[in-house]
């Protein structure tokens, strides 16, 4: 059997000092990954489909009020709680360290959604397959399945872009260069708060940033070993 090893370990750094909470990443993700558009009602019901959300917290008392932003997406944990609980392997770990989600294998037990401490898994409570009336369906990306009702979905680190970069690199007989592949959110971030890359390569930008003394990971105490590093903000805005 072929040994499943990989020179890649995809990861991300989120610099909270740089994040302005503009939400461009959310829009980019939605456009790239055929994420269904949800109306007021679905959002009020807690059934919105965002793969990436900006958590906004108010800090302090009036008049000294500050705002803090925390972009939260799938953390692509090394020891992901969502993976062992899936009875059908719809949620699995790939050799690149990504948490994959096989949409057409998913039976919709939603166990992974319960067990994800970051609550980044979104479930198709509604039928979103026909959420793009013509001609809007022309904007759907052909690289990605439009998920049917009753399945779980989540951030894939734009796996279709990684695949394409891998194919290009393979043709040229090399590995993917640093910065060659970008997730939609990282590509779009105007403040350059999101940096995506191969953490297994110690020289990559993401690996260098992840060694910052400001780094922390979300809910580190749970031992999930996320692939996303956050860089703590400085100054009074970030208590």
């Amino acid at each position, binding site marked *: 059997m072929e040994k499943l090893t990989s020179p890649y370990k995809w990861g991300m750094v989120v610099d909270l000092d740089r994040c302005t909470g503009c939400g461009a990443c959310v829009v980019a993700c939605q456009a790239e990954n055929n994420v269904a558009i949800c109306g007021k009602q679905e959002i009020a019901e807690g059934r919105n489909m965002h793969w990436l959300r900006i958590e906004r917290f108010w800090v302090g008392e009036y008049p000294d009020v500050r705002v803090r932003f925390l972009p939260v997406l799938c953390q692509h944990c090394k020891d992901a709680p969502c993976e062992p*609980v899936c009875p*059908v392997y719809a949620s699995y770990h790939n050799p690149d360290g990504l948490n994959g989600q096989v949409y057409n294998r998913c*039976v919709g037990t939603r*166990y992974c959604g319960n067990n994800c401490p970051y609550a980044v898994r979104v*479930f198709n409570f509604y039928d979103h397959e026909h959420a793009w009336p013509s001609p809007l369906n022309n904007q759907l990306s052909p690289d990605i399945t439009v998920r049917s009702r009753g399945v779980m979905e989540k951030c894939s680190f734009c796996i279709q872009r990684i695949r394409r970069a891998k194919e290009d690199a393979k043709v040229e007989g090399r590995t993917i260069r640093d910065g060659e592949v970008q997730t939609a959110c990282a590509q779009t971030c105007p403040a350059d708060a999101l940096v995506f890359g191969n953490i297994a390569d110690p020289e990559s930008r993401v690996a260098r940033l992840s060694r910052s003394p400001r780094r922390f990971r979300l809910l580190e105490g749970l031992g999930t070993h996320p692939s996303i590093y956050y860089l703590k903000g400085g100054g009074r805005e970030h208590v």
Partner: protein
Amino acid sequence: MSEPTPVAKSAGQLNDEMLSSMRPPTWRWHVLAFALGAVVAWGLAAFAYQVMTGMNVTGKNRPVMWGFYITSFVFWVGLSHSGTMVSAILRLSQANWRRPILRAAEAMTVFSITVAGLFPLIHLGRNWVVHYFLPYPNQRGLWPNFRSALLWDVTAITTYLIGSSLFLYLGMLPDLALARDRSDGWRRKLYGALAMGWRGSAHEWMVYHKASTLMAALIIPVAVSVHSIVAWDFAVTVVPGWHSTIFPPYFVIGAITSGVAAVISLMIVIRKAFHLEDYLTPLHFDNMGKLLLVICLLWSYAYFVDVNITWYAHEPIEWEVFSFMTDKYTPLLLLMLFGNSVLPITVLCFKKLRRNIGLMLAVSLLINVCMFIERYLIIVPSLSHKNMPFIWHEYAPSWVEMSIAVAAFAGFALLYALFAKFFPIMAVTDVREFEVRKAEVPLGRAKLPVVAGEE
């Protein structure tokens, strides 16, 4: 433990009275069956609506991805626990007072585990691909994930369903033969086939006794494992409030609590419906009451330990979940503590109250209401207040979920009513065997039992 008061009745009379439930159905039975069938049909319609529309017809959301269905699932697995367990333990400990109640208890197990098994299927987002759970060979080389507690559930429940059905069937063999001998037409053929040519020879009885003792010993570990595994659905996760090592024993105790209470409720209903006052005497309720008292004390202890450890560790998120639960669900929590702990422990301490049938019915029904609440309070508040405060969300069941939960009760009652109509609901031969064993013959000055026992 005192023995039941002797019933001085002839064998024929005993048979007649204990098999009275199998007489042709009265109009009342038809009305009951029709009413229950109507509720079940409503539940099926609600389920069909959910399948056609989507999970948006439920009250679930992110992060509360499980709700009423899983609560019902745990509840019904819990109910199923006791029937077989009580019957098996009492069989092994040779408690003779068990004899009139064991059939009712075993049948309860089979039907409630059947109902329980439906809920994981109902709650799936894509019910039509449920066969993905099964380890069948396929071209794509796909296999279910045996690391998942849900697969353990599937395995445990299938085992328990088969095991408890066999246990019920095995115990029923001589009674089926009896039913065969008393019936004619298609029924005679049916019971004849089911009785598998039982003739009642000494050899058959010997094998039968050995087999039922063995089966009783084998079914107990299965019963315990089933509910531990259901507890693992929660305990193996990292959800605050679920991630607790006491869950397996606590769930097993909870399951026995609700199961014993349900056996008592059913005994009272059967006693009333089929006029079996001579067989299900206050003594039986007294003994079952003692059992229930012990279990309620154990449950209270387990609950105390669970909460106490949460308080003692004082892990912020665990404490947050607990505070949220006590704050938001105070009335339910208090009702649960009253119905599961305070009331039964007070009432069941007194012999007079244990022998009061009406009171026992009230106590046992309330326990099951409270056990449903208990499961709800474990499942929902923990999910509502998970680790990320930004997406805390509350949950309320929708009419679809409630319809299906109610239809499950009706379905259980319907199965039970059908069973009672077509199969002996009392373990006739067991009761009669005891009557014979009890009889004594004078031999000079000494009195000897008529039948030599094995012991």
